[in-house]
């Protein structure tokens, strides 16, 4: 029995069935991502000033990933026109580029995740000051201001460690290489400090303190230690949920394209019009995934 309306247009909808089905599915995806986006927005606006982590995501990497996904959207669209023109080889080449872009996007995302899992925040029960450790200058607005948390990379500590796991391992002191700025400082404040630093460079005598020098913290001074994992706080919980779900969609779309390109390519021989429509429907899903990232990137990385 032949499946109806795989290529013929239905009179009532004016479309073939696959297209209607895909748009209905995308409507449900809009509700899914819309719900998560609105959750992020309300959590963001509900956060106290200075407590919402910002500036912790790599913007050039995120921008590059955006360009990768936009390029893959172009190759998907062009591959469909190649099939419309009957050029199967051109379609194959373009879809191969799409799959390379998908792999590149997921590879970069994995690298970003791995970096986050080894990036720590230490909350102190006995504050420090930038006067004691000048390399912590970017962690407070004033040199005398008590610093209750430090963010950075910890020497000799792998990913996913907690205070309990370090205590179990018998660690007595952690040496943390602090980040230049704590997220407590606003973007504007960080920019002003960078500007002042550039202006004073060359005029000032070379400082004896290396701004990347580690700060030794006794384990008894630590109230909480967490990598930038979902459990860290609301920001990373929503970041990993949104980008993780998006990455799964990228993977799913890539697998669909790979199937259509290789085992599924038999259909091009038997029913080229239906094959072209299948590619169009998979393309609609891919463009939607790109659309989601177009909003995700500025919201998570820039705002």
């Amino acid at each position: 029995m032949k499946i109806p309306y795989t290529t013929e247009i239905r009179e009532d909808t004016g479309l073939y069935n696959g297209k209607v089905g895909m748009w209905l599915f995308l409507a449900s995806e809009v509700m899914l991502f819309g719900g998560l986006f609105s959750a992020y927005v309300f959590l963001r606006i509900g956060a106290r000033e200075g407590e919402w982590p910002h500036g912790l995501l790599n913007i050039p990497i995120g921008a590059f990933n955006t360009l990768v996904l936009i390029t893959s959207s172009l190759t998907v669209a062009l591959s469909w026109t190649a099939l419309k023109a009957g050029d199967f080889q051109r379609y194959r080449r373009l879809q191969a580029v799409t799959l390379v872009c998908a792999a590149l996007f997921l590879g970069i995302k994995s690298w970003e995740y791995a970096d986050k899992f080894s990036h720590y925040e230490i909350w102190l029960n006995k504050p420090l000051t930038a006067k004691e450790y000048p390399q912590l200058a970017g962690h407070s607005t004033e040199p005398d201001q008590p610093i209750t948390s430090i963010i950075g990379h910890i020497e000799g500590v792998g990913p996913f460690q907690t205070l309990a796991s370090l205590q179990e391992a018998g660690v007595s002191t952690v040496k943390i290489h602090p980040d230049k700025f704590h997220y407590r400082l606003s973007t504007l404040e960080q920019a002003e400090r960078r500007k002042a630093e550039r202006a004073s460079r060359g005029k000032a005598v070379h400082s004896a303190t290396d701004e990347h020098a580690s700060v030794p913290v006794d384990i008894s001074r630590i109230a909480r230690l967490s990598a930038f994992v979902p459990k860290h706080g609301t920001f990373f919980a929503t970041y990993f949920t949104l980008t993780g779900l998006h990455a799964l969609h990228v993977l799913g779309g890539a697998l669909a394209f790979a199937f259509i390109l290789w085992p599924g390519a038999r259909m091009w021989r038997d029913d080229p019009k239906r094959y072209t429509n299948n590619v169009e429907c998979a393309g609609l899903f891919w463009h939607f995934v790109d659309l989601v990232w177009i909003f995700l990137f500025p919201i998570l990385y820039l705002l």
Partner: protein
Amino acid sequence: MSDKPLSSELPELVVANVSSTDEHDIRHEQKRYLAVYAVLVVGTVLTVAMYYVHFEAVWQTVGVALLIATTKATLVAAIFMHLWHGQREIYRILFFTGVFVAGMLILTTYAHFCLPEMGHYLR
């Protein structure tokens, strides 16, 4: 089913069925895709550049970022997803999607501002 490799068989047959009008339309479509791609790249560069511009108010930063993102998304939806072709059934689906999304946002906003002691649980 034929055992000949795909590349040697059907593509020639299919190309023969593509009229010169279709070919012209396809080329026009491809040029449009490339033009949209260029705009998307520029939009991405602008989005990143906007991060380094410090607007006076937060709403200005958010507004500009969302304006650029919405423009990019509209281009992707209209051109890459073929919404520009004006298929009424899809518009009907999207209209109801918009209704449900708006409903979800309105209800969430109402809940956000209607908690006991005006958002006490969130502070």
